[in-house]
């Protein structure tokens, strides 16, 4: 089969797969997706807590986060033919101190400024929304249009549908280098020497995007941060809302299956030094620290058993919002990375916008603030 396509997407995660799907949906099936590992969605796409949220997001992200929730998520299962378990029952961001409430208020105000329905609720209302929560909670922000979905089936759903529509996928295809042809980024070179060529190259490979972009002289200012999640055994149905906290202690929800999926940390993440980042070994402290954090807010879960924990790398942009952008000095290259842990919920919108960027159309919302060259020296 030909190694040349209109679009070569580097990264078989949820963003790459979504972009491939929306390209195919728009009629362009001459697309190749290259996944570096053996499994589609091996990275953060399958390792996150499944939040589909707007509240708490930066105002630069909110427009497309809101667009996705309004226009794409509700029909996604039907569209992909895979149950993505999208549940839109709201998000509570919980606070235990006055300082927490202040922080939540600021976030809420920012969000309201771009038209998001998010408001502060008191302890009593919190209990009405979710009776299982701790009495220590004094208030929360409430965004009724937030929700959650299953990142595993969403990623594979996009993949499967794009595959059915004719998109070519390659796994175990680790990209090491990009190369220009006549001044335009065109060649994608794999570790094993295989060369793919595309009119447009979408780089959606998480933190690894940084190494790849560098080969055409572009540095993407982001860092790598480990994040851990855990899952309980199946529990009787308790609630459908998504939870988060002002103190960022944990986030999570009860999945359709009955298990609870939570993300949390132990404080060591910033200094985690993994000899081989691909091994994704969890930290010996985090499992326990996570349980303490979760039980501090949802004491009803104390007897729930944890069956598994895992970790994944976040690609944290220097200023907390992603790079979704064409690159002036590297024509033909589109960056889609630095999602800073917000990639899953916004993936449908991002995928759609990437397909629009390829086609040279205007994106559904303005994403100029997400340009790759926004970093400015502070002194």
């Amino acid at each position, binding site marked *: 089969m030909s190694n040349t396509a209109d679009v070569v997407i580097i990264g078989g995660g949820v963003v790459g797969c979504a972009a491939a799907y929306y390209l195919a949906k728009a009629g362009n099936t001459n697309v190749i997706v290259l996944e570096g590992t053996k499994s589609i969605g091996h990275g953060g796409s399958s390792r996150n807590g499944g939040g589909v949220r707007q509240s708490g997001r930066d105002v630069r992200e909110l427009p497309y986060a809101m667009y996705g929730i309004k226009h794409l998520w509700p029909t996604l299962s039907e569209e992909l033919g895979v149950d993505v378990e999208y549940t839109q029952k709201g998000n509570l961001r919980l606070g235990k101190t006055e300082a927490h409430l202040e922080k939540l208020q600021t976030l809420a105000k920012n969000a309201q400024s771009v038209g998001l329905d998010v408001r502060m609720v008191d302890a009593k209302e919190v209990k009405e929304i979710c009776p299982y929560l701790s009495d220590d909670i004094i208030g929360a922000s409430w965004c009724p249009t937030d929700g959650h979905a299953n990142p595993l089936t969403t990623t594979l759903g996009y993949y499967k549908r794009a595959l059915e529509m004719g998109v070519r996928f390659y796994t175990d295809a680790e990209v090491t280098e990009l190369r220009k042809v006549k001044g335009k980024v065109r060649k994608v070179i794999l570790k094993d020497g295989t060369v793919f060529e595309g009119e447009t190259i979408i780089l959606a490979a998480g933190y690894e995007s940084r190494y790849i972009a560098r080969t055409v002289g572009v540095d993407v200012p982001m860092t790598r941060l480990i994040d851990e999640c855990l899952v309980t*055994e199946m529990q009787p149905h308790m609630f459908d809302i998504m939870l988060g906290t002002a103190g960022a202690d944990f986030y999570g929800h009860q999945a359709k299956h009955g298990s609870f999926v939570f993300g949390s940390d132990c404080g060591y993440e910033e200094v985690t030094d993994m000899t081989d980042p691909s091994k994704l070994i969890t930290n010996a402290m985090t499992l326990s620290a996570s349980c303490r954090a979760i039980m501090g807010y949802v004491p009803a879960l104390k007897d729930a058993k944890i069956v598994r924990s895992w970790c994944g790398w976040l690609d944290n942009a220097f200023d907390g919002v992603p790079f979704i952008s064409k690159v002036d000095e590297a024509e033909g290259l589109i960056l889609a990375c630095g999602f800073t842990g917000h990639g899953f919920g916004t993936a449908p919108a991002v995928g759609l916008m990437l397909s629009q960027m390829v086609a040279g159309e205007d994106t559904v919302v303005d994403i100029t603030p997400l340009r790759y060259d926004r970093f400015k020296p502070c002194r």
Partner: protein
Amino acid sequence: MMDIQEKLKEIGPYVEAEDDGMLVCRCEEVTKGEIRKAVHEGIFTIEELRRYLRSGMGLCQGQTCGKLVKGIVARELGVAPSEVEPASSRAPMRPIEMEILAEDGGVAHE
């Protein structure tokens, strides 16, 4: 490198089999047919399969069905079972109550 489209062509379409209804993953109640069908939809690895069907994701974490699932996937892909990479292995090795996990002597600092 695995060319998914090429491999799908090579293994051909999913053909129903008599014992497709048989359970393989006891915990999550996943049948042989579901696993076989998924392979023909491009779900080639155990990792993907776990995410797609939940096989091996239940209470026993695949300790009972791991080998069986591997065998089915290998057969559908036309490769030796040893070529199918098993799932990753993560703590806790046994299901443990949150309340117990929380008691590791650690305290959150404010």
